[in-house]
């Protein structure tokens, strides 16, 4: 089932045929993905409404926000009663699909050059990362949804597999990797599924850490150190999961992810101090010093290159350039060519 709006698909097709501006390609993909994830969210909410679930105020505000973005001409905000009226009409007139959790396996997301299934989070994020986007998509139950999809391919009756449908499409912070595994440090959330506990500021699944700064800000409005505590807490979970196997994700992807993060940060020029401050967690890795006394951890930690050597490599290969004490990365700039699988 496809959820992309025709206009956005056309824009993707147009951009695909003229690959000479990475900035435009990035913006078009971000907009197209936002529209698709917002449609999915509205479709899930519609299903919840049909089931009679009462929605929280924050959820109603979210629906209102989505409707005003997806249907700007039809929808004028007039308070909660009108949201219900608007959504009820939309459901009745099939303005958007209605999705239950079991339908998630069939949803196809349009990215550049092809459709991928919703559970194929890795390919969606790869395109965003390669184009230098600050947006990422996280879906907790991707593997369960993928397994349901396989069962469908082989015509095997699915025995009500439980699906973890927590997902976020949002803007991420500076670093996307820790020594434990991938990090989704959401600074802001554009689309958030209705299945989150709204009081949980972070969690870890396997080697993946997720931080939700919106929740942190709400829970600890006057405490700036909340982010660091949440980060360290979740990353420690991922380390306990991944270090016993030699932290395969981080050892394989450390340099690539840090290079991408540097280039993403240096879309705008920054001084050395600003870079050092932004990548503080990678440069002065507090976890590294904590584990430096444990022999088995020391062996794993040896495999990670220092931030400075990765940065120097980018400078010497010309990907990052210095001008009057400010550093900038050429690859993600307006007018630069791009290519993707």
């Amino acid at each position, binding site marked *: 089932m496809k959820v992309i709006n025709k206009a956005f698909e056309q824009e993707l097709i147009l951009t695909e045929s003229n690959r000479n501006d990475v900035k435009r390609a990035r913006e078009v993909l971000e907009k197209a993905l936002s529209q698709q994830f917002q449609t999915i969210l509205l479709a899930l909410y519609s299903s919840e409404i049909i089931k009679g679930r009462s929605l929280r105020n924050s959820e109603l505000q979210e629906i209102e926000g989505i409707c005003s973005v997806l249907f700007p001409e039809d929808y004028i905000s007039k308070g909660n009663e009108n949201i219900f009226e608007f959504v009820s009409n939309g459901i009745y007139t099939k303005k958007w699909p209605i999705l239950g959790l079991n339908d998630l396996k069939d949803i196809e997301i349009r990215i550049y050059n092809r459709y991928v299934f919703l*559970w*194929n*989070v*890795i*390919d969606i994020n*790869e395109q965003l990362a*390669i184009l230098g986007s600050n947006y990422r998509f996280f879906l*907790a*139950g*991707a*593997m*369960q949804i*993928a*397994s349901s*999809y*396989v*069962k469908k*391919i*082989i015509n*095997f009756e699915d*025995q009500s*597999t439980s699906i*973890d449908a927590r997902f976020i499409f949002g803007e991420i912070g500076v670093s996307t990797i820790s020594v434990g*595994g991938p990090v989704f440090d959401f600074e802001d959330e554009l689309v958030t599924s209705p299945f989150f*506990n709204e009081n*949980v500021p972070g*969690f*870890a*699944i*396997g*080697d993946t850490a997720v931080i939700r700064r919106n929740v942190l800000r709400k829970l600890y409005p006057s405490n700036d150190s909340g982010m660091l505590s949440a980060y360290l807490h979740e990353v420690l*979970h991922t380390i306990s*999961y*991944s270090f016993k*196997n030699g932290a*395969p*994700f981080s050892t*394989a*992807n450390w340099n*690539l*992810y840090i290079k991408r993060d540097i280039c993403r940060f240096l879309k705008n020029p920054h001084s050395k101090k600003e870079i050092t401050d932004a990548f503080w967690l990678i440069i002065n890795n507090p976890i590294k010093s904590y584990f430096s006394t444990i022999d088995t951890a020391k062996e794993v930690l040896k495999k990670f290159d220092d931030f400075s050597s990765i940065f120097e490599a980018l400078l010497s290969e010309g990907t990052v350039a210095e001008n009057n004490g400010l550093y900038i990365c050429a690859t993600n700039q307006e007018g630069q060519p791009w*290519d*993707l*699988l």
Partner: protein
Amino acid sequence: MESIFYTAKNLLDSRMYSKAREELEKINVVRLSFAERAEYEFLMGVALFETATICEAISRFKNCIRIAKEHCPEFNLFTPYYELSISYFSIYNEGQNPKDLEKSVDYCKLALDVAVNNSLVQRTSGLMVYVEESPEAFINVLIHLGVLYQSKNKIEESIQILLVSKTICQHFSRFDLLGQVYDELGTSYALSGQLELAGYYFVKSVKAKEIINNTRGIEITIQKHIIFSLRNPQMMFSEEASRLHSLISEERI
């Protein structure tokens, strides 16, 4: 308490199948519990698969499943189903009888169902959600299913299944299995006539195998790549092939 199958299992792990079979034959089957009996039949099947006829092994695997289903519902049926699928696929490869291929696919589907439940159950403890077990069985059965669909000449399904296993390998950073998945994706794309994509996945396979220093695996992939390329030089030398290869260095493995 040490399992009565301890020695036999060690011998099977060391690929000493005849000795394992001798060891199993010493066991007094009558005194075994149902769960032990099911396990005995399974281990005997594995030993027979390598030392006698595959049909004898199949009969043992089926005995295992029958006993387990009738008397011990907690018995994990993944490996018996999986081994049955492998056994029927071996018979199919010798005789090319489509019925054997169908049986192999059917047992593979049953193995897949068990593997999904074994491998990808997410547990919650307090506020912590974590994947409790390794998805290894699930990935292995998906690769096998992808190969079976290649044999059925259902290449599109094979590609879809292998793409799922690729995503799962990447998700769990299973580089040991990812190379194998890329190999099979390369083969499926080559069979579907998408030669440049086939070449792309063979190169990705080498990259994945480099991470875990799998030298033998790299040799196998290169051989495969060369064999396909000799028949279809555009796999390596076309403009599209060069474009795809240049993308690889920017992508995660």
